[in-house]
């Protein structure tokens, strides 16, 4: 490895170093604020280093990691998500008497895992990045050890992720047995000559593994439980970073494969997309628990993203990238609101807790409303622009069935998003127990406000982000 190789890995190195530094700092001097500042500084540095690394790209560092514009763009998104979650976590854990410092270490390691995942070009880095992200998440989900539902959510997620990892590994092994190489490019070279049954089974198992991680139907079983039981900021991380990183990898690995294999894989993904879009939205209609509603909603959104994935080509790439930006901002904003209203031992989950929120905390209600509007795809938010991009890509690729389902599902979605909004604006009934007024941390307020501004801003004027996407993500088939 040359020095240029190491330099191009700079963002990853920074995050890894920060993780170790935060751990050592906590070992010598336990201080919540110090951990937060170190974490934020590290993530900020990593983010800033991205444009500096850019001139060195595209660069294949050993056969494991490919640092190119695509990877750098998604790394930026991941670092931003980590930054936001760290800030939200600070306020959340402030009054708690457990040890908060470890969460920041785990957060940084999870961020690293996700960043490796989007830059990987080889099964080894795919697997290791994924597992680093997962292992960190197990501990983060169950972080409040004395909370029964946290432990339960942690165990469920661990079993699920463990089985997923095994499926992924077996699939990788089958593909390896067939192609003789673990690099992503290998499968394309061989599959060109007509795919064998063994290769197909291997790819199938890979899809199963990826499907579990994305939480799409029919692999969505425990997702709502895990979302409900995990601490709100961690759920935000799960919904955004974990799914987003995996989706970026899906796009990178499977797009060339799909181009070669055509029908079989296309049908599988189409079915998954349709089921997720409809299933996610329909199941959310019956829920009373805000976290579970958001969980089902994220299942549906991954379905929308799959439509863009199936569209492929530059239009599809643009749609995915833009929609992910919007999705990250929206998800973090929504879970941010939930976080701010919660404490580790008492989460603001049930819909009733949000009744009349507008009259107690007008700005929070407005922020949440904007996030929900974006999720529903109502102007003038980024969510709508994202959906338009997806629709445009879909039209270009003539994916008529998917487009019909997309529109249908979005309409269904409006119902339960609006239900939350209406609940917030309705005057509270006399017998509804009002949750105590939690002191609103300044940092969290600023972050949430900024996210709302971004959501509306992107909805009105998406051009700058589009330019960035075109410059970095433009590649692949």
């Amino acid at each position, binding site marked *: 490895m040359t020095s240029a190789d190491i330099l191009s890995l700079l963002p990853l190195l920074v995050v890894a170093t920060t993780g170790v530094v935060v751990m050592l700092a906590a070992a010598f001097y336990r201080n919540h604020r110090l951990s937060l500042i170190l974490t934020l500084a590290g993530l900020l540095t990593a983010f800033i280093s991205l444009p500096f690394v850019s001139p060195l790209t595209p660069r294949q560092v050993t056969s494991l990691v490919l640092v190119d514009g695509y990877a750098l763009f998604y790394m930026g998104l991941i670092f931003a998500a980590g930054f936001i979650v760290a800030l939200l976590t600070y306020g959340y854990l402030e009054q708690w008497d457990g040890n908060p410092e470890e969460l920041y270490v785990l957060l940084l390691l999870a961020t690293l895992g996700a960043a490796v995942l989007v830059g990987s070009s080889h*099964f*080894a880095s795919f*697997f*290791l990045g994924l*597992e680093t992200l997962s*292992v960190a998440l*197990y*501990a983060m989900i*169950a972080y409040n*050890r*004395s909370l*029964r*539902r946290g*432990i*339960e*959510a*942690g*165990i469920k997620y*661990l*079993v699920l992720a*463990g*089985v997923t*990892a*095994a499926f992924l*590994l*077996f699939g*990788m*092994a*089958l593909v*390896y*047995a067939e192609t*003789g*190489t*673990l690099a992503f490019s290998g499968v394309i070279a061989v599959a060109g000559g007509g795919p064998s049954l*063994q290769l197909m089974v291997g790819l199938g198992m890979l899809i199963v593994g990826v499907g579990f991680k994305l939480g799409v139907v029919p692999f969505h079983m425990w997702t709502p*439980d895990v979302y*409900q*039981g995990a601490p709100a900021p961690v759920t935000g991380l799960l919904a955004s970073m974990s799914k987003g990183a995996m989706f970026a990898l899906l796009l990178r690995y499977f797009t060339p494969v799909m181009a070669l294999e055509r029908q079989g894989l296309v049908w599988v993904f189409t079915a998954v997309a349709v089921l997720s879009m409809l299933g996610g939205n329909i199941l959310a209609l019956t829920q009373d628990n805000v976290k*579970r509603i958001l969980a089902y909603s994220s299942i549906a959104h991954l379905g929308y993203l799959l439509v863009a994935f199936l569209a492929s080509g530059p239009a599809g790439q643009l749609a995915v990238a833009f929609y992910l930006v919007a999705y990250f901002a929206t998800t973090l904003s929504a879970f941010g609101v939930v976080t701010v209203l919660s404490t580790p031992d008492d989460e603001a989950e049930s819909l009733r807790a949000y009744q009349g929120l507008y009259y107690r905390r007008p700005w929070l209600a407005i922020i949440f409303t904007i996030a929900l509007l974006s999720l529903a795809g109502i102007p003038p938010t980024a969510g709508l622009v994202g959906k338009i991009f997806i629709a445009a890509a879909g039209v270009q690729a003539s994916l008529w069935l998917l487009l019909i389902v997309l529109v249908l599902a979005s309409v269904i979605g409006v119902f339960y998003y609006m239900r939350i909004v209406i609940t917030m604006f309705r005057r509270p009934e006399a017998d509804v127990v009002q949750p105590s007024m939690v002191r609103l941390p300044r940092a969290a307020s600023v972050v949430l406000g900024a996210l709302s501004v971004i959501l509306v801003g992107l909805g009105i004027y998406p051009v700058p982000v589009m330019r960035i996407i075109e410059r970095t993500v433009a590649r692949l088939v």
Partner: protein
Amino acid sequence: MAEVPTQYGIILAAILFSLGVAGILLRRNIFFVLLFVEVMLNAAGLAFVVAGARWGQADGQVMFIFVLATAAAEVAIGLGLLLRLHHQFKTLNVDEASDLRG
């Protein structure tokens, strides 16, 4: 060493993998579920070694070593969670230890 057909190796891995899946579906005790996750990971690792031997490359064994590291990390946290679960719920049964609506 005499030649061992690759396909038989893969079949062995597949059988062990399936047994792991069956075990998870059959047992309701988290302890056994974790054990079978390990069985599945081991089977997948076996598949890698077989594949690596087929191509005469060290890569299969390298992946196995990484799988080993992953299994170790996962077991550490898994068993830690198991102990916490037992402490909180007083049972290791998946169906009983369920506050969250399934």
